[in-house]
């Protein structure tokens, strides 16, 4: 541990959005002075406030390691994960924490994800195949096997943790709540590009007035994703396929006869 790590803690001003929808109270900002060190995250600071200053502060969090996607919020105006954002990296004397945009507020920094999950559920986020894993194993066809190239087609999209940051950053969702949003559309591409998926109806789900064609390609979804997913790319790939510009070279992995003798 360096000497710099042992020095007296600096303090940061935390400006937090407060609102309680249940009590129909007006929204306001609370300010707190919070000590921090080089490694302190915004979530650590908020938990310090909750633990030592104001226990009524509402935050949603769980894993504290950017895996669960629970602590999404706007930090200095940009949707980020609080557990993945270090105070020292923000390089400002005041940090403003607000609930995610495009989500109804429940209380303080906690937002309602019902519609977000509904859009996600609508795109049928699961592999649809006529052949079950058990059948494939019994018949030794192994059609579920995939080559590394097949996996590469959708791998980055499978890293999505459903934190809602892309949905919050999307300008189309801001005006059109029936638009599925970048998360759902990127997940649709994830299953569409999967060689094991045989669904023929998946694209029709988003081929309507408020579907995939309403994307303005602002690209803010890809910019805010904490997991390096590029939802804008997924949307454009889907659109090019639907326009017939690109051919989907998805094909079932070759059936491999395995001789166990």
């Amino acid at each position, binding site marked *: 541990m360096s000497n710099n790590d042992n020095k007296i803690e600096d303090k940061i001003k935390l400006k937090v959005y407060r609102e309680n929808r249940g009590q129909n109270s007006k929204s306001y900002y609370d300010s707190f002075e919070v000590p921090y060190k080089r490694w302190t995250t915004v979530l650590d600071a908020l938990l310090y406030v909750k633990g030592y200053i104001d226990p009524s502060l509402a935050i949603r969090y769980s894993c504290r390691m950017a895996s669960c996607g629970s602590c999404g919020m706007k930090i200095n105006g940009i949707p980020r994960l609080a557990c993945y954002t270090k105070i020292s990296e923000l390089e400002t004397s005041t940090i403003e924490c607000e609930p995610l945009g495009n989500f109804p507020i429940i209380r303080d920094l906690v937002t309602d994800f019902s519609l977000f999950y509904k859009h996600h559920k609508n795109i049928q986020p699961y592999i649809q195949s006529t052949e079950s894993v058990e059948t494939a194993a019994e018949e030794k066809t192994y059609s579920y096997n995939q080559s590394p190239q097949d996996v590469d087609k959708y791998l980055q999209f499978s890293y999505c943790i459903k934190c809602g940051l892309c949905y919050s950053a999307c300008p189309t969702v801001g005006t*059109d709540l029936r638009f599925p949003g970048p998360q759902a559309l990127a997940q649709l591409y994830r299953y569409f590009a999967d060689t094991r998926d045989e669904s023929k109806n998946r694209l029709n789900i988003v*081929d309507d007035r408020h579907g995939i064609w309403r994307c303005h390609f602002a690209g803010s979804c890809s910019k805010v994703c904490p997991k390096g997913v590029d939802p804008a790319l997924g949307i454009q790939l889907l659109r090019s396929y639907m326009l017939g510009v690109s051919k989907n070279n998805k094909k079932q992995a070759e059936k491999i006869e395995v001789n166990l003798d």
Partner: protein
Amino acid sequence: MEIQRVLKESQIMKIHYITGIAAIFVVAIHIMMRLVVPFESSLNYDYIIANYKNIFYVLILESILVLISVHGFNGIRVILLELRQNTAWEKVITVITISSMIALIAYGTRTIILANGL
């Protein structure tokens, strides 16, 4: 009138993109035809009427009219669809934009035909 039942949104957007790209070319030809003579002469009454008598120019004008109308009114429909999300609004917007598009194309075509003296 439910355009959605006739055409999928992907088909509508395909038409939108094709008309947009095609319009660039015909408008470019239209502008170039203006540039082959001095600019002021290109606005001369006799020159314009002579142009209307040229069947090639008339076809260019008609295609500009159709392409820009289809592309433009669909663009307006798309913008307005985002403002509100209810079926009645969407139906009204669809009917208004399609009927406006047809009216504009009809009026423009009438002008071209009259000027051509057909």
